[in-house]
């Protein structure tokens, strides 16, 4: 992701080659689960998704030759998503245990009429 090429006359890389690389990565992500090992699947599924998305962003969206701070803008937004996840996940993922008490409902007393 070097930015040396900023404002160079946009020498286009070979898009077909990048495309082929993406297809190879796709194939690997499909083969991953066949090892039957959850960690391997995790890496081949999501690790490769990150690599693929970065490649698409860098070469197809031309972020590699765009001003640097566009990356930062997008990453800050991703950062907000992570903050959201970190703040919410403890409640949504682990509601069992210390945060909730399962109390039987006591119906309110009937209203007293004078």
């Amino acid at each position, binding site marked *: 992701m070097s930015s040396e090429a900023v404002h160079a006359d946009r020498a286009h890389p070979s898009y077909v080659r990048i495309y082929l690389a993406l297809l190879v990565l796709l194939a690997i992500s499909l083969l991953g689960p066949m090892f039957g090992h959850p960690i391997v699947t995790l890496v081949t599924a999501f690790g490769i998704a990150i690599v693929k998305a970065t490649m698409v962003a860098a070469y197809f969206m031309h972020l590699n030759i765009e001003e640097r701070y566009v990356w930062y803008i997008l990453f800050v937004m991703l950062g*907000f998503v992570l903050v*959201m996840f970190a*703040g*919410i996940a*403890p*409640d*949504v993922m682990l*509601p069992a245990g210390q945060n*909730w008490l399962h109390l039987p409902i006591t119906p309110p007393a009937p209203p007293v009429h004078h």
Partner: protein
Amino acid sequence: MSMPAPAHGAAVAHAPESFWSRYVFSTDHKVIGLQYMFTGMAMALIGGFMAYVFRMQLAFPGQSVPLYGLVTAREYNALITNHGSIMIFWVSMPVLIAGLGNFLIPLMIGCDDMVFPRLNRLSYQIFFVSVVIILISLVVPGGGFGGAWTAYPPLSASAHYNHTPWGAPLWLLAVALEFVAFLLGGINFTVTVMNARAPGMTAMRIPIVVWMIVIASLVFMGSVGPLIAGAVMLFLDQTVGTQFFDPKAGGDPLLWQHLFWFFGHPEVYVVLLPATGVVAEVLTVFARKKLFAYKTILGTAIATGIISFFVWAHHQFVAGIDPRMAHLFTITTLLISIPVAEMLFAFIATLYGGSIEFATPMLWALAFIAEFLIGGVTGIFLGANATDIYLHDTYFVVAHFHYTFFPIAIIGTFAAITYWFPKMFGRRMSETLGKIHFWGTVIPFNLIFIPLFLTGVAGQHRRIYSYENFPQLSTPWLNHLAVIATVALIVMLAFQVVFLVNFFWSMRHGEEVGANPWNANTLEWAAPSPPPHGNFVTMPAVYRGPYEYGVPDRDLDYWPQHVPNQEELPRA
């Protein structure tokens, strides 16, 4: 509401335009800004009327309210819900961000329009549709949505619980459309300020209010996404019958609370920042003194914007969230008061040693600082999880956030309108009427909400239709306070008539003014009043920062941004 024809040389020659193309379908940023502003102010009247109705019900429970009639419990809920939603989404946002942003940004950074004028118009049109929908939602069968502006499921998720089969989805749709409108507007603002600045308008020469509006737009953009996703889910829960937020089916109601407040809390800073920007502009002009610590103020605004993403769960301390997270959110909440306090200190330091003129805009700006301080200080109690567990959802909270929102949405807006009115319409508002209106608004405001602090501490809960059902909470003393608050509200609403008279009368008959009636520096005052389509007679360039007031060795005590340096040489 006619806008006076440009009296000075217009920058762009124009064929006569019809009323429609000039005021309704215009792409001119100033017209769109005023559209937002007028719509927002009309909605403020509606929101204020709702406050009147439900306050009357609280002060005189079960009695027919003049101009409205009997308030049922269901109507009460719908009234407070839509009061809150309207005041935030259809008053604060359009007036402070969209209205001021549209009107001011191109003028203040020295260009002729927004970079995407048609997108701008589209944004207003979407906003307008959302206004129509929220108003329709009040009168559909079943009545308006009554599940509070926070719309917590399961109550909001199913007509089975909330009994508003039409009101709830329409409310949600209106809010979602409003989000879309402000996303489009925010992108337009941001790109305009990034790209379309006048030559010489470097980042550190941009007026604070423009910075504030841009930071607010970005905070909005960063926080609203998850809630848009959440709104889609909630809408499907309401209309199709999915169970995203239904714990019985594996959904999670707490998720909505989080998604809502992940947006909802940054949102309060979204409306706060533009208001503080307005205050900064007004303070320097009427103190005739350079803004104290421009860069610090900017830094505090950015810090506030960022920290505002880390505090949201302080609204949920009693919602059963993880207690360890609650501690974290307490700490971040206390932290965010630091930059905000710093900003207020910088404002006060700006006043120190200035030659202060108590014109109406200045009064509003000073009132903002004083009243917002009360809001901020009471917020500390609510941000600390231990005290909040007692105070949560009491009138203490209501009083606290009105001490923040009212300065923002009402006081800040009046500061802006009285200050920029000459630019908008080429005429001055009446100072006398302005001051009557000022005191007639600010004094009753305190009389409304100080009693509510007390009823809150005494244990009165918010969103309660009638305290007659709670004998311990309807003691004579508490009822007294409720009556005081309500009477003060009626007085305050009555004084708004003074403003309306002043506004519309001055629009046509006020004293005509030149381009720069306040002797201010920023670029909008270099354009004719009101600015023609295209804004400037000659496009300005910028030579210095926006706050060069009282510069030593200068005859004039101000030094407009667009005046080249050599101008002063021949004076000697």
